[in-house]
């Protein structure tokens, strides 16, 4: 399985005015912070809203979903004694809101799936994208991940001791994958694997590197923060390293001791 990567954008890369990226004020005003962040990242990734027309699959991933809206809805249920519940936070709290909003921007009715598998969410979305491209079901796929941190989520994780050695984090990353190499292609993703046990850096290199000079990006949580979408940030980092001249990058992520996942990004040779 292999597919070409035409662009990768993180939420931090987005400098365009949100009103240009999401022109529909009606859609925009109902979006929470994470939805705005994820949708603008996705739109920037495809080069503007018109770029959504060309997509034949939109695959999103999130470990936590739209937390702020979920919390708002649940809090309303308690405060209002399960009466007078606002519809907007309920509608927008579902995990597939971001995928739906991207499609709604241009009424794109293509394959649209959201993976919610904790720290594996991004890798599962990536696997789906690669399989669809390998099977010829899709040739222009938007794949991405998003997660937001809220004060209550932070407090709970802090009490669990999650931030003793690693900071918290949030963000969004989207990538455009294609079946065919083009002038826009910047790298290729050539392998993905899900493991039952931890590997060391050397074991990652031995098992997954195909070139002697391969770089290993090992556990991005220390760098990007302890949140499920960190895995997607390591994907963006791998692509950036390849663009800067690395021939091959093997990425290994293991979140909270959960089963690890590995993927390999290579230059286009």
């Amino acid at each position, binding site marked *: 399985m292999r597919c070409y990567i035409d662009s990768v954008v993180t939420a931090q890369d987005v400098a365009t005015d949100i009103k240009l990226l999401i022109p529909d004020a009606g859609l925009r*005003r*109902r979006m929470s912070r994470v939805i705005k962040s994820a949708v603008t990242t996705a739109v920037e990734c495809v080069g503007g809203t018109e770029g959504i027309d060309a997509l034949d699959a939109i695959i999103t991933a999130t470990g936590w979903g739209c937390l702020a809206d979920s919390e708002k809805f649940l809090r309303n249920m308690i405060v209002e004694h399960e009466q007078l519940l*606002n519809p907007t936070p309920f509608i927008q709290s579902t995990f597939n809101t971001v995928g739906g909003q991207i499609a709604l921007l241009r009424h794109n009715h293509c394959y649209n799936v959201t993976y919610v598998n904790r720290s594996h969410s991004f890798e599962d979305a990536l696997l789906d994208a690669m399989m669809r491209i390998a099977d010829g079901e899709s040739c222009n796929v938007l794949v991405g991940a998003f997660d937001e941190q809220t004060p209550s989520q932070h407090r709970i994780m802090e009490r669990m001791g999650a931030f003793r050695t690693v900071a918290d984090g949030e963000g969004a990353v989207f990538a455009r994958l294609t079946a065919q190499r083009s002038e826009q292609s910047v790298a290729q993703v050539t392998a993905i694997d899900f493991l039952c046990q931890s590997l060391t850096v050397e074991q990652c290199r031995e098992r997954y590197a195909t070139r002697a000079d391969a770089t290993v990006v090992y556990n991005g949580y220390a760098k990007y923060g302890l949140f499920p979408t960190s895995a997607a940030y390591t994907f963006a980092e791998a692509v950036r390293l390849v663009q800067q001249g690395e021939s091959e990058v093997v990425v290994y992520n293991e979140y909270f001791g959960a089963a690890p996942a590995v993927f390999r990004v290579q230059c286009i040779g």
Partner: protein
Amino acid sequence: MEQLVQELKEHLIEELNLEEITPEDIDAAAPLFGDGLGLDSIDALEIILILEKYYGVKLANSAEAKPVFYSVNSLAEYIMQNRK
């Protein structure tokens, strides 16, 4: 009535998250749906909650919703008539 209209405008902006709109921008006589503010069916549900939450007013008959929800003025009039 004038104070109620102003209050309603503020609730609409807050609860419907109307970006970059101030109470002065809202024409109290203009239609809320379609033209005017361009609200939709989800906003209608939010307005029902505003009436109930802030004024204790329930819309008893859904058939009367259309004229009541026409504008900020019509909403204010309905509240005045039905507020407990």
